[in-house]
């Protein structure tokens, strides 16, 4: 039973990571920086509870808001460049964050031992849950309440004007600009919101594993982050959830008997899925035939 609860925790945390990329993808930007934001959230939240004795909830909120601030600051220079260049910029930012934590050492003495991030060794003993007597199902419940709140908020945003604005920018920047939308504000806003969700996800992640190190937050994690919403489709938040359940539940855990060959499968699955269903499982709400026609028109327009 504990195994399944643990799996649910992983799925919940990865759903937050996927949703953070989902928000940014809605505006048509591919951000490989989500793993970096996740790392910032993880370290900040862990420092709040382990070093300064915060409760988990304020710690995660602090992590979320701080990461949102970083995402906002990064968003301005990075979003001056579009599309493919943004991929490069955010990829570099993610690696930069990882290397920063690789070199980051700041330890304080607490309860007779040194606690804090310690360079390449990572951040050990983030023991908020065991110290405060949380059972495993408490933790799982807590994670899924956060996930439900975030998903509900995103679902609500999607059905308001803000969601339409995000999608308008994602579909056609020129058209969005011509109806008076401020592209930079929308994109930086999406980046900030994405950063906040990733930061909260990272904060929870740090507490479930109790030991974090820079290697976890590499390009592979960034790829997972953008793979969830793209495979699941940008039609609704549930696409991301389904993709996370499929990848983490089936591909990673269900096929454990295949050993290391699973990571081969992950790459191959992405390639296959993009060839056969490029818009993901739950594509945006349009009848498929109509979509195909507009697709052809777009292709013609693009050549001009």
């Amino acid at each position, binding site marked *: 039973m504990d195994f399944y609860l643990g799996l649910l925790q992983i799925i919940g945390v990865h759903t937050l990571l996927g949703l953070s990329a989902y928000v940014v993808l809605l505006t048509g930007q591919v951000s490989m920086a989500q793993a970096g934001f996740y790392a910032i959230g993880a370290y900040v939240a862990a420092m709040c509870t382990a070093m300064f004795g915060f409760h988990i909830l304020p710690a995660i909120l602090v992590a979320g808001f701080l990461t949102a601030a970083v995402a906002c600051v990064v968003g301005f*220079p990075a979003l001056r460049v579009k599309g493919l*260049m943004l991929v490069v910029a955010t990829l570099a930012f993610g690696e930069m964050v990882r290397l920063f934590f690789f070199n980051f050492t700041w330890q304080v003495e607490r309860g007779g031992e040194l606690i804090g991030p310690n360079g390449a060794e990572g951040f050990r003993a983030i023991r908020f849950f065991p110290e405060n007597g949380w059972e495993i199902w408490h933790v799982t419940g807590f994670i899924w309440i956060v996930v439900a709140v975030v998903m509900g908020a995103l679902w609500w945003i999607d059905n308001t004007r803000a969601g339409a604005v995000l999608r308008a920018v994602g579909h056609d920047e020129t058209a969005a600009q011509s109806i008076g939308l401020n592209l930079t504000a929308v994109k930086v806003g999406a980046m900030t919101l994405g950063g906040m969700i990733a930061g909260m996800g990272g904060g929870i992640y740090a507490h479930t594993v109790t030991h974090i190190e820079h290697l976890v937050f590499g390009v592979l994690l960034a790829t997972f982050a953008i*793979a969830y919403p793209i495979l699941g489709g940008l039609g609704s938040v549930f696409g991301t959830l389904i993709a996370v359940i499929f990848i983490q539940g089936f591909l990673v855990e269900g096929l454990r008997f295949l050993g290391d060959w699973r990571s081969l499968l992950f*790459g191959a699955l992405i*390639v296959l899925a993009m060839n056969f269903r490029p818009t993901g499982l739950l594509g945006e709400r349009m009848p498929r035939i109509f979509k195909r026609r507009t697709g052809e028109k777009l292709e013609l327009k693009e050549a001009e």
Partner: protein
Amino acid sequence: MDYFFFIDLIQSTVDGLLFGTTYALIGIGFTLIFGVMRKLNLAYGAAALAGTYIGLVLFLTFDAHPAIVFLASALGSGAIGLVVYLCCFRFTPTHYPMASLLASVGMLLFIDEVVIHASHGLPYPYPSVFRDAIIEAGDIWIRGDLLFVFFMCVVAMAILFWLLYRTPLGLATRAVSQQPRAAQLCGIDVTRVNMMTFGIAGILGGIAGAMTAAAVGVLSPVIAMGLTVKGLIVVVIGGLGSIPGAIIGGLLVGAAENIFLLLRGVTERDIYVMLLLFIFLTLRPGGLFGSAQTRD
């Protein structure tokens, strides 16, 4: 600032400039593919690495001559480049760049994992030439193997320029990169040009991978990510789509990397290279040689 520090600084810069040519080659590969397809091939560094491993297999099993090993690395990487094109770019929709981008990321992970499985993640020795030769110019030493790397990369660039500007294939490639639809109307088979470009870019990547391994002396799967990230940084600094930009960017990144290595040590080196990228993005988002109007 004493004399020895100054000598060290010049030494690092020279080594960096010589090694930077491999980054320039990777950058040119990214730029070529971007030029004809307006898409980013993130599997490129991994394909280069896999090609280099094909050369390594020849070296380990038949004890082949270094020249044959280098050639096999280049050709193998070219072949893998074609596979990447067929798997990630040929059948994905052209108007939805996210699909091919993610497919190439998937391919990156796939190739990386295959290489790690085949090699068990262990580093292997890679043949190198002129290892013991050293040219001394005053207090500055120039390593023979780095000079060889530099020479090979320059030759590869020269051949590329000849291909692009003196042959019908090059004309077709440049036509497609300027205006795909118009090139098609002139009877150029765009798919064929795209395939050839992936092959040629793959060969360049293979040369860069082989030269990186030859300069380091060992080959390990770790260099794939380094090649990818450094190649992308080179392209951004030089301007996406510009070949001279990629060359200058490659030399700049190579030199900057070695200077930061000297000043700040190996663990912090890459942070400063990334910062360099961000400075360029903020102050000159189009890169050194980028055109003002960018389509994507």
